[in-house]
């Protein structure tokens, strides 16, 4: 895999002296969907803004498609589409003209067919002659996405795309994102919703206090850090965990009707087989059994906690 966006030792100290990014390095692979997950103020927007040229890096280098974003800014930026976090849109212009402006700004020849296709994909075609100010919040966000797609970017940044967005738009957006990915577009989205990263991303980068804590394949991240729970429902409730099972990390479920066993999926042996044998030896009969995996949320909370001083 080749990195289409490469960030090396990026530090951003804002004018007031606040360090928003601290020595961040990150390679984004061509064609992937990367979710940048982090709480408010983590530095997600700053990182995206630096890559897109909105914020000057204090130190470090960034390349997009192999082009340095400062010395070869034209080549680098023409690959990028950005949907900003805040809804910022020319109020008095029409939807279609705003979208056409974006295409022109990125140095691309007029292409009415592409504009139409983009607006249709975002259910904006019927609204194309409306002025932006007349649109609802969700519609405005669609226009922002249309603007970013109007110039056919190879790398698309979506900064908190689902903040304040209704279910319908969210679904449309994810469909669109998947379709774009199928066309080979690399997508970077930021979110502080774990479910979102879980739902859509191929890889997840966790960022907090201006530092990237880890970047992992979503599935391997979950299995690597994911702890699983085995819940064993008992036919006969017990008062306490039998002495013979005291070596296992077991907890008693509600009313003693179940036993809960926590294990690490990445451990060499989970100990499940042995536990079940010992359970039978202790004369306990199971009525049912289920496992559950901890979500990204738990992983994330763990990580951020570890990071805290």
């Amino acid at each position, binding site marked *: 895999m080749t990195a289409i966006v490469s960030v090396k030792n990026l530090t951003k100290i804002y004018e007031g002296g606040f360090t928003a990014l601290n020595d961040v390095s990150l390679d984004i692979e061509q064609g992937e969907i990367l979710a940048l997950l982090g709480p408010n103020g983590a530095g997600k927007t700053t990182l995206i803004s630096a890559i897109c040229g909105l914020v*000057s890096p204090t130190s470090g280098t960034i390349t997009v498609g192999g082009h340095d974003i400062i010395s070869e800014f*034209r080549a680098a930026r023409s690959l990028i589409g950005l949907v*900003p976090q805040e809804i910022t849109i020319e109020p008095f212009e029409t939807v279609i003209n705003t979208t056409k*402006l974006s295409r*022109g700004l*990125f*140095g*691309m020849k007029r292409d009415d067919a592409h504009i139409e296709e983009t607006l249709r994909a975002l259910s904006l075609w019927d609204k194309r002659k409306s002025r932006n100010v007349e649109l609802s919040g969700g519609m405005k966000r669609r226009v922002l996405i249309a603007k970013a797609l109007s110039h056919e970017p190879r790398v698309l940044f979506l900064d908190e795309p689902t903040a304040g967005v209704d279910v319908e738009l969210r679904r449309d957006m994810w469909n669109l994102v998947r379709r774009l990915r199928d066309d080979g577009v690399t997508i970077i989205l930021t979110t502080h919703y774990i479910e979102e990263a879980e739902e859509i991303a191929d890889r997840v980068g966790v960022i907090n206090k201006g530092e990237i804590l880890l970047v992992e394949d979503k599935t391997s991240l979950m299995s690597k850090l994911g702890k699983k729970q085995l819940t064993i429902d008992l036919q006969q409730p017990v008062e306490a965990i039998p002495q013979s099972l005291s070596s296992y990390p077991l907890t008693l479920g509600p009313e003693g009707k179940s036993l809960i066993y926590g294990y690490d999926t990445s451990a060499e042996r989970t100990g499940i087989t042995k536990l079940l044998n010992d359970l039978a030896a202790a004369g306990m009969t199971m009525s049912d059994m289920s496992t559950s995996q901890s979500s990204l949320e738990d992983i994330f909370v763990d990580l951020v906690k570890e990071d805290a001083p």
Partner: protein
Amino acid sequence: MNWYAIAAIYKFEMARTFRTLAQSVASPVLSTILYFVVFGSAIGSRIDDIEGVQYGAFIVPGLIMLTLLTQSVSNASFGIYFPKFIGTIYELLSAPISFIDIVVGFVGAAATKAVMIALIILATSTFFVDLQIAHPVWMFAFLFLTAITFSLFGFIIGIWAKNFEQLQLIPLLVITPLVFLGGSFYSISMLPPAWQTVSLFNPVLYLVSGFRWSFFEVADVSVGISLAMVCVFLALCLTAIWWIFKTGYRIKN
């Protein structure tokens, strides 16, 4: 240069102009008519010809310059301030265009609008006075140079301004007095000698004088000096733009 981008900015800005054309034209045209009624007819009938030019006609170049300067400054300053204010500037900053492309697009559109309005005023004034334009080529040269120079100046103000008050401040506190004291409505030879000297420090004097010369071949200062001064001011504005470009002053974090 990214010509598609420059064309896109220019077209977008011109669309904004045409959307609001009625109001942008109405106000200067109305005030011009009022000037003619008050100065041209009511007071002007009691003022002698100036250097052989009837007073009503004499003030036409001054009136056009007044509108041209205020329009150039306000169009360009508003044009770039507005995206900064509502945040759409993110797109300009993230596009594969240089600051120079942005300047050319915005300043080009602002100057075009200012020249359009100036020509409308010129046309309006022919209803009130007899006008001959002795040197039309020079007239257009002064018109365009001034429009571009002051649109650049307006662009700088738009970048500098942090709020709408500051945006209004310069046109109100600087441009209007300079235009009124720059011989728009009189010849500086009508002033006491000391004030004549002071007037020579007013850049607008050179614009008005050169512009008036292109109509009537009468001028407060020689046309060569006028032209040179316009170019000096243009160079100053370009230097300031270049500095903003180098430092990212008030546009980039």
